[in-house]
């Protein structure tokens, strides 16, 4: 009796130590990760904040970026993002829907398509850029333009959208589909009115990830949407994205560092604002319509 009590105490002490060590290591890892982000943000604020003013957001690029603002680039970036999301979201969600609802899981077609999607995800962005330049700019005659850049990015974020939507659809309760079928709903109604709304939180996560990826992309845009710092008049104009501007200031412009930091700060803020808006809008819409509170 006493033996077993002793041994259990000893085990408890040992596992107590292990627990504490594990908790400490986990906590350290978490703080390190958060600290890294904090450090980056702090550095950007320290270097970039002094140059920020209203005119920085509205002004044109002057003296290769050492002076002036990023107004046209902000507009170009947003336009590139729109040109990217408009085709990418329906394509990505449609592809995931087809994989999850229309073909049998594990069938040859399904495996070929998912394999293709995963392969697409592993293509380096510079290769996407080269492809975009050859295909959109030259072959389709779109030239260096916001449209070419957006479409190239669309191809790049497709795998993210497909994967996240597919995961969301596959993790839905399996009995939703028979429930819909048993009420005589068509497959279209079942997908549009029941499955998609239920998968919406996952899809929104995919879209926000895609937005982050698209806005921060540089390599793929160098060859496709170009360097022009003029105010874009249409999506057929060349337009420099914020990320390309940062790259240019940091590498090609002497004393461009501080302005690069300011631009980076603007880009970071833009991503955060767009993501927050996407999450908020979708939550409000979903709550009103589909996911009421308990």
């Amino acid at each position, binding site marked *: 009796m006493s033996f077993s009590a002793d041994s259990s105490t000893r085990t408890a002490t040992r596992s107590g130590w292990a627990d504490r060590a594990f908790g400490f290591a986990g906590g350290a890892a978490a703080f390190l990760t958060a600290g890294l982000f904090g450090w980056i943000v702090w550095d950007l604020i320290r270097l970039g904040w002094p140059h920020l003013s209203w005119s920085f957001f509205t002004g044109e690029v002057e003296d290769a970026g050492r002076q002036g603002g990023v107004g046209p680039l902000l507009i170009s970036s947003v336009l590139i993002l729109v040109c990217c999301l408009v085709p990418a979201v329906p394509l990505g969600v449609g592809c995931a829907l087809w994989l999850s609802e229309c073909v049998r899981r594990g069938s040859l077609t399904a495996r070929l398509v998912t394999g293709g999607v995963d392969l697409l995800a592993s293509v380096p962005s510079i290769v996407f850029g080269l492809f975009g330049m050859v295909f959109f700019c030259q072959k389709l005659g779109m030239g260096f333009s916001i449209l070419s850049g957006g479409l190239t990015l669309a191809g790049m974020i497709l795998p993210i959208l497909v994967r996240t939507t597919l995961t969301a659809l596959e993790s839905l309760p399996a009995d939703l589909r028979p429930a819909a079928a048993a009420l*005589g709903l068509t497959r279209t*109604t079942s997908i549009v*009115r029941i499955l998609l709304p239920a998968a919406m939180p996952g899809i929104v996560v995919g879209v926000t990830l895609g937005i982050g990826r698209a806005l921060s992309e540089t390599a793929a845009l160098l060859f496709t949407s170009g360097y022009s710092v003029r105010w874009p008049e249409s999506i057929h104009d060349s337009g420099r994205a914020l990320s390309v501007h940062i790259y240019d200031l940091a590498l090609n412009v002497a004393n461009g560092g501080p302005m690069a930091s300011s631009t980076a700060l603007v880009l970071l803020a833009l991503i955060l604002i767009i993501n927050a808006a996407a999450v908020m809008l979708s939550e409000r819409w979903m709550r009103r319509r589909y996911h009421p509170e308990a």
Partner: protein
Amino acid sequence: MNSVNDSTETESIARLSVTSLTVRYGDLVAVRDVTLAFPDGRITALVGPSGCGKSSFLHSLNRLTDLIPGCRVTGGIRLFDGTDIAHPRADVLALRRRIGIVFQRPNPFPQSIRRNFEIPLREHGWHRRDIPDKMETVLRQVGLWKEVSDRLHKSAVALSGGQQQRLCLARALALDPEVILFDEPCSALDPIASGVVEDLIHSLRDRLTVAIVTHNLAQARRIADHVAVFWHRDGAGQLIESGPAGRVLAAPSDPDAMSYLGGMRG
């Protein structure tokens, strides 16, 4: 609603009849050569041990087996008016409106209670303004109206298991089916909720034709007019005995049915 006014009538006509029905999953025969009639306005209980094809049989009655890849159904299933359910070009969607089903696990859509009715009713052509009345009628029928009338805009999945199952029954009833199938509707519920659902099923008698798969022989004894006993024999599920509940439950002629119903096997 179809009502059989004369409930004392001994043998009513068949609302749904099945002839030589076989359900296969690839090479596996789930249930073989079943011929069975479901009398109009009566409750038919399908009983038998697990794995004897009762659920496969039930799901084939409104073609839900179509959803399962590799599943093949042969034989005849006919509604009272001659509608051939098993026909490859049968209007499956209209058919599923006429033959509703309630599953083992409650499966409300993860949306508001109201949307759970709006989606199927709109699909079948109801006008938006007629839906609230219909919803209230069926929710009253299942005794859920008082509990949810002030929270129709709230999520259906926040209800208790028993409430969810009654909601699913109400949702099926909203489409005015002629036949309603129950696939072990009480087995995921606690005894009290189970009793409530059982009473509801019993209350459908005379108005609807009911087929219920149950493992609970006491439940079959309480609510069924007719009983069909399934058994796994010669590598496939088969119907070994069927008839009026009183006779089949008290004095089955098949020896396996006798030992199963007597609680000795299965």
